[in-house]
Structure formats: structure tokens, C-alpha cells
């Protein structure tokens, strides 16, 4: 049953039952407060103050409460969207690196990729639902995004962060070693190449070298 947007008790119930869990999820994942949500909260308090202003007529006050309620719903949706964006950013790094996908995840690669595809499919259907129901059914849209985030959380919990850290350090070390080796090989190859080229270009070059080194007169 949709809430009564002009009821204070429905507003408070939605805040406690739906918004606070969404806010706690996003804040605990980021360990920071998302600016977008804080802006919505600012809008909510602005409309709530208008509602509390007894100098205003009843219709205006109710309209402001309704607006505050809509901002609250929008803030709840933003919490899950922000979570999705952050989870997607974290997962993309792993998905793009085949070694990381194989060795830093506590599940098989095929299973991980299947779950990741499901994660993308779910957000696609959530976005489609949102776009086809603009301004009509925000509560169901919130539920859709929440299910997407649940799927993302399942994926993120399979990722071994300690292994990722170790993998990155080892990769950095190997990259340094390989780069140094490649530079040295490059220098030696360039010297040998220059000598060979001179020999081809001027056959007397070798003779001149020997004369210079006093090997022959």
C-alpha cells in the first residue's frame, strides 16, 4: 500500500523503516557521508520547516510535507544508486584483470563472471523499470535497486582484499624487474646492431678497429 504523503506518521515511519537502513548501508560501505544524500536531507529540512510554520495555510503546509516525503524517497533511492556505482567501480578493477579474477576471488572465475553478469542485468532492469515508471512508483524502484545492491554485495564478499593487495605488490615488483631487464637488453642489442650495421656499410671498419687496437699493423 502506498504511503500517505501528507501524513507525518507515514513520513516518520518511512524515515525509520526505509531511509535509515539505506543510509546505514551506503555510509558503512563508503565510511563517509554521500554529498548527494546530504543535499536531499537539506531539501527535506527546508520543506519540513515550511510544514511546521503555523503562519502558513493548511494546504501549503501539506504540500510541503508531501515534497519533503518525495525528497526522502529520492534520497533513499540515491543511497542504493551510490552504492551500486561504488560497487561497480570496485568490481570493474577485478573484472578487467584476468589474473585478479582468477587468484583474488574466493569462488570460481566462471561463477564470479556469471554473478557479475547478473549484477549488470539486474541494474539494467532496475533502470528500465525506473524510466518506465517515472514519478509513479518510487517505492518499487527502490526495491529493484536494493536487490541489485544485494547481488553486488554477494560479489564483493567473494573478493579477497588481502590477496588483491599482495597481488598488486608482487605485480609492481615484477614489473620493475622486467623493465630493468628489458632496458639493459635494449642497450646491448642497440650496441650490437650498430656494430653489425657498420660492418655491412663499411667492410674496412673491422680492419680499422683492429689497427686502432694494435692487434694488427
Amino acid at each position, binding site marked *: 500500500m502506498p504511503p500517505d504523503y501528507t501524513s507525518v506518521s507515514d513520513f516518520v515511519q518511512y*524515515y*525509520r*523503516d*526505509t*531511509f*535509515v*537502513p*539505506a*543510509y*546505514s*548501508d551506503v*555510509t*558503512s*560501505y*563508503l*565510511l*563517509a*557521508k*554521500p*554529498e*548527494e544524500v*546530504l543535499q536531499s*536531507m537539506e531539501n527535506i529540512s527546508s520543506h519540513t520547516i515550511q510544514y511546521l510554520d503555523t503562519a502558513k495555510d493548511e494546504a501549503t503546509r501539506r504540500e510541503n510535507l508531501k515534497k519533503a516525503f518525495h525528497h526522502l524517497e529520492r534520497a533513499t533511492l*540515491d543511497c542504493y*544508486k*551510490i*552504492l*551500486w*556505482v*561504488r560497487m*561497480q*567501480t570496485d568490481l570493474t578493477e577485478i573484472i578487467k584483470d584476468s589474473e585478479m579474477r582468477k587468484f583474488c576471488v574466493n569462488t570460481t572465475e566462471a561463477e564470479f563472471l556469471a554473478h557479475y553478469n547478473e549484477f*549488470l542485468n539486474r*541494474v*539494467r532492469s532496475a*533502470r528500465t523499470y525506473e524510466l518506465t515508471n517515472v514519478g509513479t512508483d518510487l517505492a518499487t524502484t527502490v526495491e529493484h535497486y*536494493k536487490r541489485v*545492491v*544485494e547481488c553486488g*554485495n554477494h560479489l564483493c564478499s567473494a573478493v579477497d582484499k588481502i590477496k588483491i593487495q599482495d597481488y598488486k605488490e608482487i605485480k609492481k615488483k615484477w614489473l620493475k624487474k622486467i623493465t630493468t631487464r628489458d632496458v639493459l637488453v635494449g642497450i646491448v642489442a642497440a650496441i650490437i646492431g650498430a656494430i653489425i650495421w657498420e660492418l655491412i656499410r663499411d667492410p674496412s671498419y673491422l680492419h680499422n678497429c683492429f689497427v686502432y687496437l694494435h692487434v694488427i699493423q
Partner: protein
Amino acid sequence: MQRTVLFERHYNVDVSQFKSTDDVDRFLEERSGKKLGVVRTSGNVIEKVGNVLPVKRFEVENIDKIIDEALGY
């Protein structure tokens, strides 16, 4: 009361004990041992192209745009 996706499991708490966002902030600050800052989801994406030092983007993008771009819409 709706359940959380990760908060309750991660901290082994019951979200119904938290009556407001202030309660959540206070709890997380206590557990993490640091004051919670504010992040801009779109703005704190670090530019990786052409900058020697990480530069924060300041233009305001909306979250929907980021989602659509990620999905290739």
C-alpha cells in the same frame, strides 16, 4: 522495518536500534575511530588521463548519468 544489505551483517547490529542518521554516523565514527567526511560520488572519481597528480572533478554530474554510462546507454 526493512533489513540492511550489508550494515547489520558487517557490524553485527540490529538496524532497528538506530532511530536516525545521527545514530548511524555516531556508531560508524565510534567503530572506525575517525570522523566521517563527506564524499561526492561523481566528483571524487579521480581523473586518470593526462594529470600527474590526481585531480578531483568538480563539475556536478548526476548518478543516473554514471549508471547509464556504465551500462553503455
